[in-house]
């Protein structure tokens, strides 16, 4: 399906291009829609196209040999999903699954290389995005290595609040897969946070009632 010019300007790689150049590269992109739970791509498979999330929420994760999931990120609109495999070569190091109805914009690997040769200024945006991703991964390593579970769960809550845009929801299983722990441990941590008066669990809603106290718990949990 053809892509929308008005939305194409939100593709992060194209931010350095003029409106005219963005219009010219439009035919290189294609649209792909996913239903909830559908996979955008799978770990271990060859990466043939770069995907940018335009609408919805996508879970990017690794799976261990015994089926345990580690969520690397919960992606929201305008995030690139698989740049490491596209630029680094080799198969997809992660899988990506739709957590809601999703719209992706894609560009085939060879077309992207052609685009980069025509518009080398795009490289700056790509380097910036790859650096940001490295920092996020470092932060994840830091959390998994040094933070106690309660701090990790607290951080997940702060980083995944519903805003005006993508209204994402997280299950306790997904929180566990981000925090690198078991679902039961997340349930206990939420209960502890509620007992300490920083959150209130109101049925399907977790209300952060004392944001600064929660930030303090996150800081102290290392």
């Amino acid at each position, binding site marked *: 399906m053809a892509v929308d010019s008005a939305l194409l300007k939100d593709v992060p790689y194209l931010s350095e291009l003029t409106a005219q150049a963005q219009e010219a590269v439009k035919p290189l992109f294609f649209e792909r829609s996913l239903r909830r739970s559908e996979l955008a791509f799978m770990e271990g498979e060859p990466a043939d196209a770069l995907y940018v999330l335009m609408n919805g929420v996508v879970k990017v994760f690794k799976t261990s040999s015994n089926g345990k999931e580690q969520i690397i990120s919960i992606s929201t609109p305008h995030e690139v999903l698989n740049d490491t495999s596209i630029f680094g070569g080799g198969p997809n190091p992660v899988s990506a699954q739709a957590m809601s109805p999703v719209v992706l914009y894609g560009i085939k690997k060879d077309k992207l290389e052609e685009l980069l040769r025509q518009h080398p200024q795009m490289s700056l945006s790509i380097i910036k995005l790859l650096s940001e991703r490295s920092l996020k991964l470092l932060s994840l390593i830091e959390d998994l290595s040094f933070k106690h579970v309660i701090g990790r769960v607290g951080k997940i809550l702060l980083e995944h609040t519903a805003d005006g845009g993508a*209204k994402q*929801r*997280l299950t306790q299983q997904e929180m566990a897969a981000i925090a690198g722990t078991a679902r039961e441990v997340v349930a206990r941590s939420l209960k502890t946070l509620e007992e300490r008066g920083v959150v209130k669990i109101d049925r399907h809603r977790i209300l952060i009632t004392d944001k600064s106290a929660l930030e303090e718990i996150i800081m102290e949990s290392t």
Partner: protein
Amino acid sequence: MVEMPVIDQSKCNQCGLCITVCKCGAIVLQHDVVTIVETEDCHWCTTCEAVCPTGALTCGFEIVIED
């Protein structure tokens, strides 16, 4: 409309474990298909999600910062 847990029918193997553990009657078997019934009695205990062997049943939380 009451927010309820969600079943992904493509993943559900109709084992019925969720129906067994649900204390409020929110999950029933209708025409041999596990189905969610809207009820305010559901307190989001998430036990149905915990016992689901295929990950078909999810109880998502919306996270909100209180004003």
